[in-house]
């Protein structure tokens, strides 16, 4: 019931926001923050219990027939992995709501905002594939409507929301086809027609069929992450609206979650075969996006490509099938969202003060706005992966785990670390230091901005030095998934990488 309650709170608040806006313009925001905090509280309280549970059969499960004729259930479930991301989503949700104080048409905004969040939260809860798809679609539409309404007036590219929808819908369609194919194959094999994840995991698939169906799923997730070459929607989205950034930070997590929750457990052998391709995509993503981030002058574009480059690490880490790199992936999802989110927030703050996103159009901010610049520096350091901040833990674990599988991939990915230093310090170089060049009057960060940035920085610092909470919340899930996936019988022991060692660069070892 607890999961249903969380969802219901969000949906209820969505409706109340829409209605309440007629009474007073501040009511929608108030209701949203309140609802999000309530949901956040509920999710956090149940965190400790969820850690030990097995997804699909937990004590929180809420399971009722949904489309009975098709065997689809409204089945919500949550283990440590789910709850970690639900908590994180709601947390970013609160920050996003706090940021949007002076938005026009608040009823419209918060209605879609909460709908979007409930869609994302739903994805992390769905234990039924049709329900998963339902939530998947549910999060895309509000995002689209938000983008149409709140894109900037000076944004020349009117195609941006369309581009977003096109990318995500086409790939979503592929996933739906995959789900249906799995549904019928499983039905024919067992004569139980069900969309239940735990049922479908029992399906016996011949390798070619598995590869074929998996491709549908993986494409949807890769587009959402996004990786090169399916990334085009993301820089466009970042440019369309400053608010989009915070949504995107949450939105893209669903892609990695999908791979970890669905693609790998449903198609273990096919995933192993896909791994070399995934590694190649990951390397390309890290380097390609890193290079563009270095050459961009628009701070939003840098944030977008930096985020894409971080995604490359996620995809490498996922397909390294190693416990270290999987924990690294979890850290990367959180740390990158905070780091890039922070950068985008600062970019937005910069725009509101100077009227430009161009980092070559302003310089020497330090002499006028030292707090702003101080945060800017820390965020840049986070993005380049300085030890002590959460982003380093992510990159270290991913690369340490990947190294056990493929040395070449690790070395190529490590080049990305050097490139990250180059583009992150370039921002510092252009914006914060040098002789002051900018508007005559320049205000430092407001109290609210300071508080939000401090929250993000403290979080990066705490998670960078004390990793136990995150590791503990997902270690059971990850170990189970890894064993499930491992085609070798021996248990997972460090040093003796029991997972799938043979498939990438066997000649190296």
């Amino acid at each position, binding site marked *: 019931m607890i999961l249903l309650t969380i969802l219901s709170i969000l949906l209820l608040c969505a409706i109340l926001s829409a209605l309440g806006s007629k009474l007073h313009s501040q009511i929608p925001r108030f209701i949203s923050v309140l609802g999000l905090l309530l949901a956040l509280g509920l999710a956090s309280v149940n965190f400790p219990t969820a850690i030990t549970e097995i997804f699909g059969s937990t004590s929180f499960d809420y399971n009722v027939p949904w489309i009975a004729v098709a065997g689809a259930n409204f089945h919500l479930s949550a283990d440590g992995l789910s709850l970690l991301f639900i908590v994180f989503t709601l947390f970013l949700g609160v920050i996003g709501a706090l940021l949007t104080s002076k938005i026009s048409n608040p009823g419209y905004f918060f209605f879609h905002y909460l709908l979007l969040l409930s869609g994302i939260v739903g994805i992390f809860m769905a234990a039924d594939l049709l329900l998963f798809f339902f939530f998947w679609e549910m999060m895309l539409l509000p995002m689209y409507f938000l983008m149409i309404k709140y894109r900037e007036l000076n944004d020349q590219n009117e195609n941006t929301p369309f581009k977003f929808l096109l990318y995500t*819908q086409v790939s979503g369609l592929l996933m739906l086809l995959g789900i249906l194919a799995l549904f019928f194959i499983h039905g024919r094999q067992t004569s139980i027609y069900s969309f239940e994840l735990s049922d479908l995991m029992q399906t016996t698939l011949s390798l070619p069929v598995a590869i074929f169906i998996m491709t549908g799923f993986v494409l949807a997730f890769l587009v959402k992450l996004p990786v090169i070459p399916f990334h085009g929607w993301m820089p466009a989205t970042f440019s369309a609206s400053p608010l989009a950034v915070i949504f995107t930070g949450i939105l893209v997590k669903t892609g990695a979650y999908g791979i970890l929750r669905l693609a790998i457990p449903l198609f273990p052998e096919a995933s192993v075969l896909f791994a070399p391709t995934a590694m190649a995509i990951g390397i390309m993503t890290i380097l390609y996006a890193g290079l563009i981030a270095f050459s*961009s002058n628009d701070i939003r574009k840098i944030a977008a490509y930096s985020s894409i480059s971080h995604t490359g690490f996620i995809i490498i880490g996922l397909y390294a099938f190693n416990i270290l790199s999987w924990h690294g992936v979890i850290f990367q999802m959180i740390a990158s969202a905070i780091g890039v989110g922070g950068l985008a927030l600062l970019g937005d703050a910069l725009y509101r003060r100077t009227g430009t996103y161009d980092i070559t159009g302003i310089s020497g901010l330090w002499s006028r706005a030292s707090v702003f610049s101080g945060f800017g520096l820390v965020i840049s350091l986070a993005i380049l992966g300085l030890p002590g901040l959460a982003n380093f833990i992510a990159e270290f674990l991913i690369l340490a785990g990947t190294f056990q599988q493929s040395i070449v991939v690790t070395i190529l990915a490590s080049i990305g670390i050097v490139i990250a230093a180059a583009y992150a310090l370039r921002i510092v170089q252009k914006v*914060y230091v040098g002789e002051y060049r900018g508007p005559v009057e320049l205000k430092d960060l407001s109290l609210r901005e300071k508080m939000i940035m401090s929250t993000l920085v403290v979080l990066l610092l705490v998670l960078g030095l004390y990793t136990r909470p995150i590791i503990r919340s997902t270690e059971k899930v990850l170990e189970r998934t890894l064993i499930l996936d491992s085609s070798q019988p021996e248990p997972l022991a460090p040093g003796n990488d029991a997972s799938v060692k043979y498939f990438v660069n066997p000649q190296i070892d």
Partner: protein
Amino acid sequence: MIQPIWLLPALPFLGFMILALAGKFLSKKIIASIGIGSVALSFLYAIFLGKAFLSHPDLHLQFTLWDWIQIGTFNFSLTFSIDSLTMVFIWVITGVGGLIHWYSAEYMEKEEGYSRFFAYMNLFVGFMLTLVMAGNLLVLYLGWEGVGLCSYLLIGFFYRDPANNYAARKAFIVTRIGDTALLIGLFLLIREFGTLDIATIANQANQVLGINLSMATIVSLLLLGGAVGKSAQLPLQVWLPDAMAGPSPVSALIHAATMVTAGVYLIARTHAIFALSPFAMQTVAIIGALTLLIAAISALFQYDIKRVLAYSTISQIGYMFLALGVGAWSAAIFHFVIHAFFKALLFLAAGAVIMALHHEQNMFKMGGLYKKMPVVFATFLIGSLSLAALPFISGGFFSKDSIIWYAYASENGNLLLWSIATIGAFITSLYTFRMIFITFFGNEKTHIHYTPGKTMTVPLIILAVLTTAGGYIELPHNLAHLQLFSGFLSSTLPQVTLKNVLPPEGVFQLIVALLSLMGIWLAYQFYLKTEPVYKTSPTRQFFLNGWNFDKLYEKLFVRPFVWLSNINSSDAIDEVFDFVGLQIKRIGNAIAITLNGQIRWYLTSMIIGLIILILFMMWT
């Protein structure tokens, strides 16, 4: 009793926190007291700990704060540990560091950003202590990157001039290339040992890597990659001369006494791995020898006093690498200590000169200063005598002499390494006294407008005493039986293995001593008897620019990178998709006549889905 040794780095970190958060509201006096006080407290605690170490050099203190990363049986904990090697580094970092902080209170007084300066300096000391106290290599890496960050921040401290920031960024990125090699080395160690715990790795090195010596070589070379980056050795030495853009105390603390020797520490700390691979040892020795020679020659052609000292630092660290490479571990560390004293002294004294001459760094515009600034001159001279390794009256003689001797006498040494080290010693005394004569003698060219106060001169005097006295704790074997320093380190670092048959050490010492005296005499001929004039020619320009490594790297790496990055700044893949998207949109617009508005794609996809669903159901 378990000593709370985590306090050592925690105190400077606390100083940093206070200054970073509240620095704006504090007076300069309080800022300086916090900045100096936090390091001084650490130093006092280090002295207190040191008492126990002096009577029991094999003592080993350890303190684990918490598990940093713990996954399955992988455990990377935040562990601090102190043995005699670490103790030596802690004394130097907090002691010399404290003196430099003290000096800075006056040096930085007129500059903008007083609290920012002390905050960064405190942060640096905290990270540097973390680095040398790390109980496992991941914590070492934390300190390693942390000091790199502080170096970056402090090189670019005068942030208004973009040139300083370019120098800072160059330093960070060049060292990061080395750091990445180090990181990959750590991954390899994780794979081979399943841990990064330094003590475990040292104990099991023989057992794990002994059977696979090529693996030992690869690990060593990767660690060496990190070391050459941080310690500005070939081929990553290019960042250090530009790092002189930072204030002089920064150059003294970070780019002479402590951070740049982190590479020496790393190799000494992991000597168990290096010792397994003769090839890696040889590489370390050769890198050291080449660097010391190349940098010394460059130092001879500089006109900026700080750049002379920068090249001299690169060259002196080259000597330390040479010592490490021939297995003379404690000789390398001894030279680190003496070098920290005299090079910090030289930088601080040079800083006093620069300040007195209104930020003039060109030696050829100085001259005749020995009468005007007697204390600074005297201390600078004492530091220079050590750098030039003048026999018996300087600490540098004892530390450098033993390295030069071992370059031949160690079983890994040979005549070539010895010759390079000896020629280096000759050039060193030549460039040192060129600097002395041009700066302090001859005609006065610029009037001094500031006389350094006690806050600046007292640290200089203390360092001058340390420089000279420090040498006497470790005397050459053929002169006396007084080897306190290597005795102190003997529980941590193995003794150097010598060749079986050796010529008398005295002959070698005599040659080196004569050459260094000849260097001084030559400098006297060139730069004191005749008025020195700065001349340029293509050859001089080549050495002035540090053998044009910068130009080479610019062509080889920087330009291709920028080119590659710019060529695709508009993201070609995205453009292809946009083009396809545009075509689809045209088709979409046609369909849109029959569908209502913007949710058409959603509807289309749902409808197609439903059709398939129904078809499948009918089929089964």
